């Protein structure tokens, strides 16, 4: 069993070291004449303005959070699902079934919640429309000046 770890580890190490090694070795074979034009960031010809960092919308961030939760769920379900077949064949599958799919259902509630709240919608106006409708219902006065802007 320990040898299998050694095999897997040597695969990962070789796969990680190989490209960096190729890059390092090819550094000596390659010509290298860096002049300012070549080093400037590529912006279809214009000269770059401002830093590479631009404040993008945090849709990516919401996706990362929801991914984290569902990734944990999938990782936790693996050991339970592995026992399911033996339990199903020689009886006693009910507790495992209820446990696993209770876990799965609880998190499905989370998915349905954010689906309805429009958090996984990616298009800005779809989110704004949903949010505007919600705000409109709740705060009648505050909403007027936002509608026409």
């Amino acid at each position: 069993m320990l040898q299998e770890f050694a095999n897997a580890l040597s695969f990962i190490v070789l796969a990680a070291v190989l490209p960096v090694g190729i890059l390092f070795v090819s550094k000596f074979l390659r010509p290298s004449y860096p002049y300012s034009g070549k080093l400037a960031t590529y912006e279809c010809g214009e000269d770059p303005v401002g830093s590479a960092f631009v404040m993008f919308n945090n849709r990516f961030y919401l996706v990362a959070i929801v991914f984290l939760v569902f990734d944990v769920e999938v990782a936790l379900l693996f050991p339970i699902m592995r026992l399911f077949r033996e339990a199903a064949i020689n009886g006693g599958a009910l507790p495992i079934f209820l446990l696993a799919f209770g876990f799965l259902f609880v998190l499905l509630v989370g998915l349905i919640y954010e689906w309805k709240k429009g958090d996984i919608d990616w298009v800005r106006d779809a989110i704004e429309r949903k949010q505007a409708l919600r705000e409109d219902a709740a705060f009648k006065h505050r909403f007027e000046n936002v509608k026409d802007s």
Partner: protein
Amino acid sequence: MFAGIAHNLTIYLAMSTVFFVFGLFTILTRRNAVGVFMGVELVLNAAAINFVAFYALKADSAQSSPWLDGQIFSLFIIVLAAIEAAVALAIVLRVFGAKKNIDPDQVMELRG
């Protein structure tokens, strides 16, 4: 020189101690809230290493329980650290959105 080091507990505990101390140091000195959070991650990993190492100490002897207690504990540490990451970094983002900087020392308006 290191013969048989993998079979006694000192190296695992030394590693968890080093992780704990560096994690604590990060929490105390980082100016960026995300940096403080990385320190928390190191401290959690230190605790998880201890759980697995101490379970391995009594793995096959008589009084070890059939259920892999040590590994289950560190599995739950990993799971709950993931959730803590989601919530903590959402708060960090909100604080940054409102106050444009997330230095834990300067963002203190809530206090008193």
